[in-house]
């Protein structure tokens, strides 16, 4: 079963990047995920200042704005999609993620329309 781990940074630095995360921790974790053979996808997102929001109104008008900027305390900084047997396994991987220490990791089961 696939689960998405949404990694939220607890604090954001001046450039809108996640603060307090040691690159070495992330590299070690990423290696563990790869070696466990559970990795489906995973990316780290660029700083929030690079984000753009698009909305299309009912009449088809397209609005493009910069941001969203960090109004909330926690900012999505990256994600993994992993394939593991059950929620407990997914929660365990989430707990080992460095992002869970500085911020939080939200675990979302990926909808399965095949079964």
């Amino acid at each position: 079963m696939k689960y998405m781990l949404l990694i939220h940074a607890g604090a954001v630095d001046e450039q809108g990047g996640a603060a307090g995360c040691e690159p070495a921790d992330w590299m070690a974790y990423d290696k563990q995920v790869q070696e466990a053979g559970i990795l489906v996808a995973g990316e780290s997102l660029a700083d929030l200042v690079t984000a753009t929001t698009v909305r299309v109104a009912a009449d088809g008008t397209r609005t493009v704005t910069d941001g969203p900027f960090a109004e909330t305390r926690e900012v999505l900084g990256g994600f993994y999609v992993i394939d593991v047997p059950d929620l407990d396994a997914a929660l365990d991987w989430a707990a080992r993620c460095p992002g869970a220490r500085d911020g939080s990791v939200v675990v979302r089961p990926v909808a399965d329309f095949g079964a």
Partner: protein
Amino acid sequence: MIPGQAVEAVFREEHGRLLAALVRRFGDLDLAEEVTSEAIETALSRWPVDGVPPNPGAWLMTTARRKAVDRLRRDAALAARLAVLQVEADRAGPAPATDEFPDDRLQLFFTCAHPALAAEDRIALTLRCLGGLSTPEVARAFLVPTQTMAKRITRAKHRIRAARIPFRVPGPDELPHRLPVVLQAIYSIFTEGYAAKRTDLTGEAIRLARILRRLMPADREVAGLLALMLLTHARRWPAPDAAGDGAGPAGAADGGAALVGAAEEGAALVVVALTGGAAGFYGVQAAIAALHAEAPDPESADWPQIVALYDVLLSIAPSPVIAVNRAAAVAMRDGPEAGLALLDALAGEPLLRGYGPYTSARADLLSRLGRRGEAEEAYRAALRQAGTDAERAFLRDRIDRIDGIDRL
């Protein structure tokens, strides 16, 4: 014919075991519940005519399994989904032998009280799946309409299926985080029942803890929880007034002997809970309950020891609510002034804002110090915060007594 109550008792005992075995066998809580109910219905119609089979549990299991297989034959989509689940389950661990009828209820406890479920859903599922209560009975426990409870249980089961909350006992790494969630669900059933003076719920919580104790005989916190509930149960309800509306929790039919038995069993379990390692959250509370139970009246309880145990409890689980109880114990040991000083020091705690027992404990100490005006004011504040009729009756009585003294 067999008496309906005897049949019901058999089913209450068998329901959880049957359901747990079927969840493990088929990996689906909904299917397991459906065929468990059907097997029990079949038994209800057949046993009064044919007589109770020699091994009722095995009979129910065979019947339920047959119904599950029939259902899977009719529903190819469900069968396919469960086959995938089986493959995944095998990936997670070796498939257990399925030909005997072992006790799988421990796994079910951990599924029902999974931290990914809302706290009230854990309690509802534990009562439904392990207590064998019907949905209307669970609804009565929560004082909500049956339909509301049916929706809540359906939503929780959907969550178990969709997020694939597993049916397994957590490994040694996870167990210290997971077992307290199971114990909390059982204890919540007890405290709800105790507050509402409902022996059906307190009795059910004790029954569930007994099952858990059989399944985890080496765990000291499970022993501590069972001890705490037995010792609390063995004490009479706190008498709301001098006339003593203190009907014992065991009720009229279940006399003093049963209460003494519960107190003795609880006291023996406290020793188990506190032997062989650091004291746990429930073990320490049970030890406090045992000291209360030992004392013929509150004044002669071993208050120095009770205060010391509250200190231990605060070091395990710091909480302003426990600090309030500790202050009340200090008042018994060192006098009301000392207790009041501790309570007043807690006045800024956000968690205690609007917390009736805090206000009421303060009122009690003020009254003992003869500060009647302040005491009455505090009792009136506690009256506004009180959650149950029994609490309100108790507080009104206290206010009347203060007024009575003033009129003398």
